[in-house]
């Protein structure tokens, strides 16, 4: 699909985050895994080694660990703007799961779609919108067709 056909948005943050103070946008994360399945081996390792450290490091995020019979373990992240993201972590090592969790923590929760420009401003032009009189000295009168005979 061409880039015009794909959904896109402008660069922005939730609630002007970071203008006043930075608020971590990840409000809640649930780690869903199986107690027995082979694919959850890395998640079980992570829960033994790293999840307490992660929770201590991020007091603003509530971490739920829920064992249930499932073949594909996953991390469900909920963000302050109401969006929910699921990340499948089957057959991942403990280190890889920590990386996935850190990535989810650093995200803003806005949809991951094409961003039109890597910068954005609410007032795009400093001197104002262009009009026929921009950069014309005030002494020049009305706008007329250019003089054909002037050489």
């Amino acid at each position, binding site marked *: 699909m061409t880039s015009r056909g794909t959904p896109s948005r402008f660069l922005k943050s*939730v609630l002007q985050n970071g203008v*006043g103070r930075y608020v971590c946008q990840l409000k*809640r994360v649930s780690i869903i895994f199986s107690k027995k399945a082979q694919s959850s081996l890395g998640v079980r390792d992570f829960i033994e080694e790293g999840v307490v450290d992660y929770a201590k490091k991020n*007091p603003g995020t509530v971490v739920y660990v829920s064992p249930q019979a499932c073949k594909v373990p996953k991390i469900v992240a909920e963000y*302050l*703007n109401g969006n929910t993201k699921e990340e499948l972590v089957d057959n991942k090592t403990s280190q890889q799961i920590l990386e996935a969790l850190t990535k989810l923590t650093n995200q803003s929760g806005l949809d991951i779609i094409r961003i039109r420009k890597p910068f954005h401003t609410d007032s795009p032009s*400093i001197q104002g919108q262009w009009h026929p009189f921009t950069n014309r000295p*005030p002494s020049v009168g009305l706008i007329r067709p250019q003089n054909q005979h002037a050489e």
Partner: protein
Amino acid sequence: MAARCMLIRSGLTFRLQNQLVSRRPSVTPVREKKRWMKAYTYLMAKKLKLEGPPPPKPRWQQPNWDYHSEVHAFSSRLHENFSIELLKAAFINPCYVHAEQERRKQLGVDSETTALVLKDNFQLSEKGASFTKSFLTDWCRASFPSLPHEGVEGIVGHLISPSVVCYVARNLGIEDLTMSAEYPVADDVLGSTFMAVVGALEESSGAERAAFFLRDFLLTQLIGKDLFDMWTVMNPMGLLVEELTKRNLPLPEPRLIRSAGANTVLPLYFVGLYSDTKLLAQGPGETLVGAEEEAARVALRKLYGYTENRRPFDFSPPQLYQQTLLQSVTGN
């Protein structure tokens, strides 16, 4: 015909349910083509079409929810030291307490043996609302000293309007924690909960922290807003004349300074406002009247110091903020 079909279908579901109920886990499932599946899916699709999607469930009714941890996380996420009891009280709305009492009465719970000890957030909300209003008014007066009383009221009214407050509250995750009688939470309930949170912060860590909270989360909504979007002025020229007479300046004199394409579908006029042969402001417009009004608005923005190219607001963190204040005081 249709009624007969529905009858047959309802009979079928009844049988299906019976089958499902009677199927014991000890019986080994039969591997065969599930011929009942098509009718069942069809019926469920029909039901969805007739009844519409089910109502949204509040977050506390979904799995993985621990209220105490959530409230703690809310407090530390915003880098504030809330007193947890106060914060929990701030989330309890009067409508929730009322609905809970009704529910208990219906269930036949004795109100004396198991009394509902819940303090609602009415007082906190009132306190927070009055604090918010006074702080925002003071802040506007300090930032725009020449803005008249109506303008300050317009800005404050925009900031504490339900749409802005609810937008902020939803994006701070207050909606999940709010105890309300109905879900989705109504706008006025959410607004009063936000004010109660502000009131709780003021009680637990003082007015200064509450002021910084409001500055960081509510006043940032002013970024990119035009003055006359928030403050409706019907007759800007009259207001400009009033302001100039207050300052003992000669009255503004509109002059057409530039025009182009007067006979086309896209005419453009530039009107300049002169006071004592000095150009106050100039504004564009498609008609002469419109251009004059726009020029008056530009002149008013210049007078009040709310131009687009003004110095940005200071949102630096508290320690830095105090340093800059001290520097400005000593510099003066």
